[in-house]
């Protein structure tokens, strides 16, 4: 076979392999989503969303308490992580001298890569030992996970602000802090929001940190944050480890709810990103 023909065949082969690989990824996604949807169908009902978990051994029940708990946990975590993340990013882009910026950047990347179970253990040691599990401890653990994500997203969008904008404001005699708060932050709000939404989607699905901080909870709706808050990921986890098929069905349904939430959040983040990009670049 001529060398030319061989080269053409190899090229074609590689194209096929790459296409198949992409198809495999899409197929796996489809399989997982369809699996969950199929098996969840039976449990989805109005009761499912409005009733709390059934008492041990009893049929029925739903995830109302877990839903409420997850919402509370994620909101608290966001409230903790957002300011620290945004301020850190501002420090890195506006104030930090190069020698200080690099180690802090390294630290943020380290935080982003920490095994979440280690974070759970840390918060456990800090806030749970000697007291009890609590929603606050759980939220704090989730906040540690959200922090680097928000900081990175904020950094990215702050860097997008053209330096000419900063210079123009400073040249007018406007103070640094006014420039940052009044000019730079407002143009970056879209990107910050996007990063936060994505961080929230991530935090809502995290189990390991909550395993140590907010996993022993009652079967009723709980809003006292000093007590452990029921939450969806731990519920799915616990049910998945039980042999009861009724619980499995509820686990599937809860998983569907979680995935739907993640999907909606991702789409929202994408839309936000597109809008803010259009505003900035025009």
């Amino acid at each position, binding site marked *: 076979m001529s*060398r*030319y023909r061989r*080269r*053409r065949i190899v090229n074609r082969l590689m194209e096929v392999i790459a296409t198949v690989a992409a198809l495999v990824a899409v197929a796996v996604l489809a399989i997982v989503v369809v699996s969950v949807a199929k098996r969840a169908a039976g449990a989805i009902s109005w009761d499912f969303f409005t009733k709390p978990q059934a008492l041990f051994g009893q049929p029925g029940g739903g995830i109302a308490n877990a839903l409420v708990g997850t919402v509370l946990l994620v909101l608290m975590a966001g409230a903790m992580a957002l300011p620290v993340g945004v301020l850190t990013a501002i420090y890195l882009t506006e104030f930090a001298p190069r020698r200080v910026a690099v180690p802090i950047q390294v630290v943020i990347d380290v935080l982003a890569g920490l095994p979440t179970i280690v974070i759970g253990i840390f918060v456990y040691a800090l806030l749970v030992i000697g007291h009890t599990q609590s929603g606050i401890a759980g939220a704090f653990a989730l906040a540690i996970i959200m922090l680097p994500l928000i900081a990175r997203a904020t950094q990215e969008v702050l860097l997008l602000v053209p330096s000419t904008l900063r210079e123009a404001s400073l040249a007018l005699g406007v103070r640094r802090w006014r420039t940052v708060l009044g000019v730079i932050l407002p143009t970056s709000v879209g990107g910050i929001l996007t990063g936060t939404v994505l961080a929230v989607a991530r935090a809502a699905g995290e189990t390991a940190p909550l395993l140590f901080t907010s996993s022993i909870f009652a079967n009723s709706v709980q809003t006292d944050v000093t007590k452990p808050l029921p939450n969806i990921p731990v519920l799915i986890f616990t049910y998945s480890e039980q042999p009861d098929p009724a619980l499995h069905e509820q686990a599937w349904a809860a998983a569907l709810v979680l995935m739907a939430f993640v999907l909606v959040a991702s789409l929202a983040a994408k839309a936000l990103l597109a809008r803010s990009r259009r505003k900035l670049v025009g």
Partner: protein
Amino acid sequence: MTEGITMTPVIDVAQARKDAEPIEKNDVVFDIQKLTASYGKQPAISDVDLEIYRNVITAVIGPSGCGKSTFIRCLNRMNDLVPGARIEGKILYQGDDLYASGVDPVEVRRRIGMVFQKANPFPKSIYDNVAWGPRVLGMRKDLDGRVEKALRGAALWDEVKDRLKKNALSLSGGQQQRLCIARAIAVEPDVLLLDEPASALDPIATSAIEELMHELKRDYTLVIVTHNMQQAARVADMTAFFSLDVDESRRTGVLVEYDGTAKIFTNPGDKRTEDYVTGRFG
């Protein structure tokens, strides 16, 4: 050395060349018939008719935006890489239709090489830059000899023979461009297309490239796009003048005049050509 880079009026330079060498119109390498090339709806060039002759340097000149680059990129099917690009009309390369179905652009590009405006050596060693093409195409015999021959052909051998293993990016701009020429001729093409090869270089490097082109003419057919009229007058045997044809319905590049360089610069037939070469516009 070369003629000095002085601001000799274009006409005088062309006159000097007119006395020097008669142009031999050997066989036709490219027969371009009613070529219209468009990206999307607007045609970038329309109804171009010309023939390019072997072992002759043909310059393509004209104001910015008149489609010179588009034209030259049609000759080696590089426009295929732009989504939405199409051509109408015919380009016959040595009698064969370049765009016939079944013609593989890969084969086309092996025979019709290209040097780009901005030198683009691979981030590899000097040796590997020149050797990569032959290796991939299967010309593995006496690779060292090939590399030396190509580097000599590009007038670069003496400068780099002691540091072939060094990274190509350590060379100066002019040397990098000559390396790209060496890389192109290492695969033994018939034609070399040069898209403003010296526009990013200083005058000394430019004159080195121009001198090189006179040497390359012996073995290859050269088509060079240039926005520098003096360069065309110094270097080219034939010159094609493109210009923009603008009316209510369209804005497209057209071939205005194509003739021996001396004639184009001393006694152009078309008023538009005369206006351009005497500097009245463009």
